[in-house]
């Protein structure tokens, strides 16, 4: 079964996705990522108000087998977190691009988005 990749999102090489609306960036992990991590059993989200540099550890997701870091795709301040996935981590598996989103960040510098991959580039990256 091929992993779903959404056309309108941007992607990192570490399999995070971002959706940009103005300077607010919603962050999650891709379908490819959730499928390779396996059933999520624990999600640790950052505090609202926390600031992160691009590439910093932002979220921890854990499956039965292991813990994985989710890195901040761009620098910014956390404005909202999805507490629903802390209660039901499996939502990240079933709806990685929708109800399974993780964090909303107010971008420090929106132009950092240009360093990310588009859907076609990510598709190639994920196939490697």
């Amino acid at each position, binding site marked *: 079964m091929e992993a779903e990749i959404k056309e309108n999102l941007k992607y990192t090489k570490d399999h995070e996705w971002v959706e940009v609306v103005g300077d607010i960036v919603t962050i999650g992990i891709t379908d490819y990522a959730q499928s390779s991590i*396996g*059933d999520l*059993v*624990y999600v*640790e989200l950052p505090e609202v108000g926390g600031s992160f540099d691009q590439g910093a550890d932002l979220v*921890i997701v854990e*499956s*039965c087998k292991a813990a994985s870091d989710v890195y901040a795709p761009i620098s910014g301040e956390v404005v909202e977190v999805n507490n629903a996935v802390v209660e039901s981590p499996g939502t990240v598996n079933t709806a990685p691009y929708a109800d399974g989103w993780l964090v909303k960040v107010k971008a420090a510098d929106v132009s950092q988005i240009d360093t990310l991959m588009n859907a076609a580039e990510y598709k190639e990256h994920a196939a490697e």
Partner: protein
Amino acid sequence: MRKTELYDEHVDLGGKMIEFAGYQMPIQYPEGIMKEHNWVRESAGLFDVSHMGQAILEGANAIEFLEEITPSSFSGTPNKKSKYTVFLNENGGIVDDLIVTKLADDKFFLVYNAGCKQKDETFVRKKLAESLTFRPLMDRALIALQGAASEIVLDKVLNLGEKGGFGSQEYMTLQEVQFEGGDLFVSRLGYTGEDGFEISIDGGSAAKLWKAILAHEEVKPIGLGARDSLRLEMGYPLYGHDLDDETNPMEAGLGWVVAKANKIKYENPKRRRVGVELIGKGIIRERVKIFAIDGSEIGVITSGGFSPTLQKTIAQGYVRTEFSALGTKVNVELRGKLLEAKICSYAFVKPRTKQG
């Protein structure tokens, strides 16, 4: 990397293959570890454990030899009875844990860990008396069928005819059964805490038996991921994680495998294997350090993870004996933070094997 006889079956079933002990093994199938785990607890699951070592020990004084290299007694053991035990080194440390089944006074069937195969075979050969032969069964596969539905499925797949069904086979016993003209060793045991069987079969017939069992809707294939979470819920130790050459059976809570006469050899253990329960959220895994409330380091987690049955984190590890009482409050260090935890029994879930 080596493949078991069932490699093609795993790939056909969509198994996610990883390296384990030098073999390509399925960590999970498309349904995932959680569903696989629950399926074994609810119905029955089929595991390829052909990577494990199987051998026949045969000859005069086999009993004496086993009593020399393990702490267990085999002289009073009835034929076809299986025992869980450990190989011990000169210092009383555990070389491996294994199942020994008595086929006759001078013939035993041994099943040991994949990761210890070379080590075990060298260990046994080094000590082997001239009257004995030790013959690894390189061409045999091993299939585990685990879960409450195992018995009815096996009754359908392996028709025992006049012998009746598998219902009369007791826990921790072996019976030899014919399948496709070959001899199977069918042992009623396993490492999931459920009723079930491990079937040793000629490698060439393994795929046929695997498919015949999977044809029953009660059974799904289960990968190594769920195998690990199933045994962790039971508090069963995993060699290389919860047991090693430096650990003796008393520390490991395996005093029950040590025959009375041998117990005296061990002084009171300075550390003990315990269960650890996290008070808050988080997942503690191997190598997480355990601290006393006063801040002193008292032990380490040797395996841990999420329990699909209990829907919470469970772990086992070793702490200094004075901190091993149930209910003792401790802290564990997770990513630089201290989290509250307490010592509990490592048997998190009650076994449902045929006789407790």
